[in-house]
């Protein structure tokens, strides 16, 4: 049972990681003068969009999302609406945090918000997909020993890695190397993406390695 779950998760992660690579390569073919540094925002939106789509699709197909009690359309719609609101709130939250960290308030607000969108896609969207718009469940997952399935653990790891990646990505900005990737917010969004990819990679390995210690409470 363990192996099946881990294998499933690994393949899901592989698909998401592949989508990031595709989102980097495809515009290079389609869009003229595309480059990760030069047209950074295009790259950022393409990655965010593809990750969002793939995430939703994968988790829809796998049926990871918590079973809904009511199956009515109106309930589903309200859930969808709430999810959208949560996503937007999380974007605003990340935007605020990034501004508090010293991002310019007015100029390049679009860049800052794009970074917030990217961060939300990598963290909040996955939470929404796996846990649904259920704050109680989020708190449970993000408190220690709160994980109840491999998916919860993977969520913890990828979220942490993305945020830490963004955090570390800010370090090269003050260096006086005058490289194209030091322009705000390129290093941070690259850091986020690399952190997320690392999280995707390490989550199955980490769970496999620690499967003796991991004892999930049965649902």
């Amino acid at each position, binding site marked *: 049972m363990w192996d099946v779950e881990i294998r499933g998760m690994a393949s899901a992660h592989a698909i998401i990681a592949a989508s990031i690579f595709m989102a980097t390569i495809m515009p290079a073919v389609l869009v003229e003068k595309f480059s990760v540094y030069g047209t950074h925002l295009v790259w950022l939106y393409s990655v965010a969009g593809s990750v969002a789509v793939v995430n939703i699709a994968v988790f829809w197909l796998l049926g990871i999302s918590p079973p809904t009690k009511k199956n009515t359309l109106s309930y589903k719609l309200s859930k969808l609406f709430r999810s959208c609101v949560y996503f937007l709130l999380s974007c605003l939250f990340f935007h605020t*945090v990034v501004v508090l960290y010293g991002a310019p308030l007015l100029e390049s607000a679009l860049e800052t918000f794009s970074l917030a969108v990217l961060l939300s896609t990598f963290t909040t969207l996955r939470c929404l997909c796996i846990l649904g718009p259920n704050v109680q469940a989020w708190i449970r997952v993000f408190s220690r020993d709160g994980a109840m399935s491999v998916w919860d653990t993977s969520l913890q790891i990828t979220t942490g890695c993305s945020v830490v990646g963004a955090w570390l990505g800010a370090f090269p900005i003050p*260096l006086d190397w005058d490289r194209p990737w030091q322009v705000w917010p390129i290093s941070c969004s690259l850091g986020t993406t690399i952190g997320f990819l690392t999280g995707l990679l390490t989550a199955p390995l980490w769970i496999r390695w620690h499967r003796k210690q991991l004892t999930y409470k049965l649902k």
Partner: protein
Amino acid sequence: MRLSSSVFASFCLLIELLGIALFLRGFFPVPVKSSLSSKSKLSDLPAEPLAGNSPNSTKVPPPLFKRVVIILIDALREDFIFGPNGKRFMPYTRHIVERGSSHSFIAKARPPTVTMPRIKALTTGSIPGFIDVVMNLNSPAVLEDNVIWQAKNSGKRIIFYGDDTWVRLFPKHFMEYDGTTSFFVSDYTEVDNNVTRHLDSTLKRDDWDVLILHYLGLDHIGHISGPHSSLIGPKLLEMDDVIKKIHASLISREAEGTLPNLMVLCSDHGMSETGSHGGSSEPEISTPLILISPLFQRKVGLEQPAMVEQVDLAPTLALALALPISQNSVGRLIPAVFEEASLREQLRFLHMNGHQLSSLLRDSNPNFHKEDGYEQFRMAEKTHGNWMKLYMDGNTSEVLGNMGKKLLKQYLEALQAMSAALSKQLGKYDMYSMIVGMSLILQVLVLLVLAMPEALSRAACVDVPVASAFLSLPFYLLCLLGSSIHVLVCTSAEASCYFCSLPWLLAFTAILFSSALLCSLVAMAARYVPIPGSPQPKTSSDWTLSELDILLLTGTVGHTLSLGASSFVEEEHQTWYFLLNTLCLAVFQDVCRKYFRERRRPGDDEEDDPLLPSIAEEDASQATFSPAAELGVSVGSEKWLALSTPILTLACCRLLRSLNQTGVQWAHLPDLSHWLNSGDHKVVLSLLAALSLLLIFLLVQRRCSLVSKIALALGLLGVYSYRAAVGNVLFPWQHSGRSISKGTGEARFVYIFILGILFTGVKDLLRSQVMSSAVEGRRLKSRGLWEVYSGVVLLVALLFRAHNLPTLACCLLIQTLMAQFIWKKLHYDAAQTTIMHYWFGQAFFYFQGNSNNIATVDISVGFVGLESYVEAPAVFLTAFSTYAGPLLWACHLVCYLSSERDRAALSLGHGSYCFALLRSVPAVFYVVLVTALRYHLFIWSVFSPKLLYEAMHTLVTAAVCLFFTFMDQDRT
């Protein structure tokens, strides 16, 4: 020897200060300066020596040259001309060197081989001391005596094209100039075209006497692709063309009957094998120096160019143009240039050079009598007088000629000896002193680290095994070894070491002490080695680190490591703001966890939360004294206040960050302080200042006695009226025509209240010592401490500029809120609280507008309340206001830790120990780093100023630690 943690910490810091002072003395040698502050004048020139009679003439020999063209090619290495490639890439120059009427030399540049100090060396003839350059960073103009100034002063018209460093060094010296910025290193064509485009027109004109060209392209190519790149060849060919053009033009305009022209081809420094410069490797310090003039004899083939010093150019040029030699020049003239002059003139030139060198030697070296060169020069001068007597008598025999030749040689030897003696003191690191200082502070750091478990234990005592160390055999062996090394270094080294010049008794005491320290270190380290057979002491198993601990540790280590990169030193404020933000978010998460457990999503920053320490229940029983009650809010809202504290802190930090833009890369961006000070917004500034002062009063007064409260209120009013008197802010009832005064009266009025509050505080502290009741005593002590703290706050309020008053208000606000709702409520231990205080202190150091550049120190603070410049108070006030942020937080830490009811003494010990450790780690690391990077390109502009800041900060921390120790004394 058992020492309490705080005594131990202050002791360590004091030793460290000594070590750093010794290191700094070695790192920044005292510069050689003439005692006269003015510049040399023609009238000061020595008379021509003449035995017997009165001195005969003070006339300067006539100039040798009419016009001078100086072509400086940046980073032109000696082998680019004299080496095998010279023939290929610089054919014309090579032809002149081999067959033309020229003199070629290899001029040795002194490290650091960086453009600006080298230009100074070329023009002043002195070797700038390291401390000079650091101190002059904010006023780059050369104030010293120099050839350019002398030339301009004697009416020569100077034209300059090239690197704009010259324009900054010699403002208003040039009749005409066009500076090119060397900022864009990637451009190597524009920078040179910018110079060459002026050439044709300038060479046709007759209205100049000196033309200086500084070509940057070669240096930029070196930086991009190194000395062997394919770009070098074309660039050298281009330079060769320029030389050809100038030479041809000079020759064609050479007229009969006038003086010949001189062309100087030189370079400021060479280029290393990787294309950079700054260090002291052979290719970096070897530069060509070629003097071309029809006056010189034609060469008959390539000879090995002679070695000269770069500083020799300045006196040579000065004498050749009949200008006085600059005072601080340590160079000696190049005799080949004067070969064509008469013997009498040659001797006169040598005498003038010798006279200048000997007076500089007399000013800079107290033992100048013992110098060989000085004696030789005196002898030569005497002989010169005799020779002149014979010469004036009309003696023209061969004897006179031979005697003159001998005298010439005598002069040259004397010049060489004096020049060598002078330059020995300069521009050189005194490695021995540096190493001794460094080893001392390294030992202290290891001692601090080894003592960590003991110092942070419940006893807060450190047992330093000094007695056993003094009695052990290794101690005596180490002493012997140290002394022999000392004797060996001091007797053999030709360089003058500061440590050697100390009295022997002092030096040996230092060696004794150092060896004892080393022995104690080994003894202490041995304690941690498990003895086989004995039961393993329980260690580290119960040491669990919370996320906050991990953040605090990684932050401290990460910041220390970041000092290795010059950009991170320049932008250190970014590091601190970043760490502080993360800290606030982590604290926010802790608060959420405490108040919401499972009901709310914790902060997003960390993904796994440790279990909540179950202390929430204890709180209720402990709440004999509620912070909420003290601030006058209900208990229910306490939760929300606690939750909003980190958010408010974050918001404050974000605001303060945009108040003063510091650093280097983004320093030019507009910030709030510019906006506030722009004159149009005086009303806003006044309102803001008044509000800040009000807030300061509200926050500080609550724990003061009534008298201090009144004094504080009056003092803050005085601060506002001082600012109004100086013209920073508006009085609401102010008349428009009021003149702006210096505000001395108002400032002194505030000083009186500051002294009054401090006096009350100290009185309370003293009284608390003799109090019989412990509870009463502690209450009095805490009040006394707070009064001292409010005195400090009042002083800071007086010294801070009006736009910085919100910084102070925010600082106090954050301190109050954090103390009430975070540190106390979340039960952070003394070490954690200390680290947080230290971080906040560092961040506020930058919030108030400081940076790691000397230029941001606000010197005007030294004049607050003083009619004129008085050194001691001015230095104190400047240092105090510069370090106001760290000091305020340190003072608050003392107040906070001693107010902890049950474990005040323990906390104070732990706090002072952590403070000492936090300061020592970066300081020691930085000292080692600077030693390793001493030939780095940015050693002067970035690393050295930071070194001074680190030393000053250590001094401030030592003072704070001593204060801690005094507060910690009464524990029983």
